[in-house]
């Protein structure tokens, strides 16, 4: 056992401190957001805030229920669009096409995840919103527009992870099934998908996390009305938009209310992340 020089010890301690900094940062972020938001929640009452339907912060009304509904609806809509398209793409690329095609398309799709969200939002405003307004009605700035744009934005995430998951299903499963006389389709639906199920669920949850957390594109295409929508053509506001739109101007109670919105959002995302981690671990086990 060699002597460990004091310098080596010092370096180890420094590295240890650096490693702990990640925990420290996470802690500080959580602390600050909760410190600013919790007192407000306790003062106004969680029920009042979560259940309230009127958001007029400058007049003392802080109901964020319409925004919670907005976030959930637009995320749900994004999944409705993103999951079928994304999963189909992944299944097709893995089960019905060649590795060479996959090697080109998969990185290409992943590259698209790098496009800034504001570009998606802009194209949504220029191309999609007028389309909705003219052909379907309403202002165009709507839940529908938000769902479509978000759905497209989460495609790379869902496709990429699903491809990984599907490729990870052992070849023997497929070969066994084919040997029994099944077609590829039957193999996929009855064998492969079942084996990959928890991985795909992870992909969907991660896509959901991305959708719930998106701000800029949503502000640009959903219209930001503070009322629960009556139809997909109505405007909505999400929790993220709420913060993004009003943060710069808010002061006092209003600002604290926005932090409370941040707390709610934070909790929702943490729950989602935990769920994703758990399903991921289940698969490995």
């Amino acid at each position, binding site marked *: 056992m060699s002597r460990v020089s004091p310098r080596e010890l010092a370096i180890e301690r420094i590295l240890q401190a650096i490693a702990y900094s990640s925990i420290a940062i996470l802690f500080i972020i959580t602390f600050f957001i909760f410190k600013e938001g919790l007192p407000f929640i306790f003062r106004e009452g969680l029920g009042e805030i979560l259940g309230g339907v009127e958001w007029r912060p400058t007049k003392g009304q802080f109901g964020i229920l319409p925004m919670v509904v907005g976030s959930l609806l637009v995320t749900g809509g994004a999944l409705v669009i993103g999951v079928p398209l994304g999963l189909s793409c992944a299944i097709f690329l893995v089960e019905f096409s060649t590795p060479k095609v996959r090697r080109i398309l998969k990185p290409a799709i992943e590259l698209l995840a790098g496009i800034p969200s504001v570009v998606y939002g802009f194209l949504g405003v220029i191309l999609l919103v007028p389309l909705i307004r003219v052909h379907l009605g309403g*202002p165009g700035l709507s839940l529908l527009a938000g769902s479509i744009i978000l759905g497209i934005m989460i495609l790379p995430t869902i496709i990429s992870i699903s491809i990984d998951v599907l490729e990870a299903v052992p070849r023997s499963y497929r070969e066994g099934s084919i040997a029994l006389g099944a077609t590829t389709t039957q193999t996929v639906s009855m064998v492969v998908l079942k084996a990959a199920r928890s991985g795909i669920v992870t992909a969907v949850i991660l896509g959901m996390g991305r959708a719930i957390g998106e701000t800029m594109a949503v502000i640009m295409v959903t219209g930001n009305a503070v009322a629960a929508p009556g139809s997909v053509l109505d405007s909505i506001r999400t929790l993220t938009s709420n913060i993004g739109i009003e943060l710069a*101007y808010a002061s006092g109670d209003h600002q604290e209310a926005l932090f409370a919105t941040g707390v709610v959002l934070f909790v929702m995302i943490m729950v989602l992340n935990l769920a994703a981690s758990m399903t991921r671990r289940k698969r490995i086990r």
Partner: protein
Amino acid sequence: MYLILHMILTRLNISTARQEAFLLFLVFFLAATGCRGTDPNAVGGVMTVAGSTSVQPFAEKLAEEFMAEHPEYNINIQGGGSSAGVRAAQTGAAQIGMSSRNLKEKEKGLHERVIAYDGIAVIVHRDNPLEGLSKKEVAGIFAGDYANWKELGGSDGTIHFVAREEGSGTRGAFEKMVMEEREISLRALVQASNGAVREIIARDPGSIGYISLGLVDNRVKALSVDGARASRQDIMGGRYELVRPFLFLTQEEPEGTARTFIEFIMGPQGQELLSAEGLIPGE
């Protein structure tokens, strides 16, 4: 200094090449950090002007022209809203605070300078057949009373009304002067800046919104309100009532860079620029 650093680094067994890389990095970093906020009241210092986003685009243009003539000055315009502007001026976070509304009672105590007056224009799409509405009708629209333009004498189509966000000085002014006791409907579309509101109105034939008069261009139409047009004559003549002051706020009587800048703005060049941009000179 370099030698000491060199000795320490050699002790740590870091090769000379890496030492040089590290030093280069240090130099860059130190140069980058520069001088922290030089005294803005000294000639050639950096000055921060922060506050109302309604005033911001005009302040930016003024600063641009000012700095073109006096390149030794560096003026930094920030947004944040009228309330933030007031606070920035009070705390000294900014040398000048911008506000698009009058100071409230508890905010008094700052030195105020009206650099211009801005009308609030009620705008609709260029092709909207309506030319004007009464103030009560406008309030009614934004309160959600009307669903279709037909009800107001316009063509058939749903009304999409766009408001600014809560906390905005423009919204506050609109609420005080137009809505009065009524509330803007929760179903109103909301955008985070006057420019964004204008863009929506310019594209959607069924929309209506309110923005800074100075931002109106030929893609939108400013309605007359209660018979008064949103024009310079009607504002100066007192007929068009939706007017608010653009205030530059300083802790004390402005000095140094702040004073030079404000003098530029109040002088012929500045006022001409503001007029050209659609504002009313702060006479």
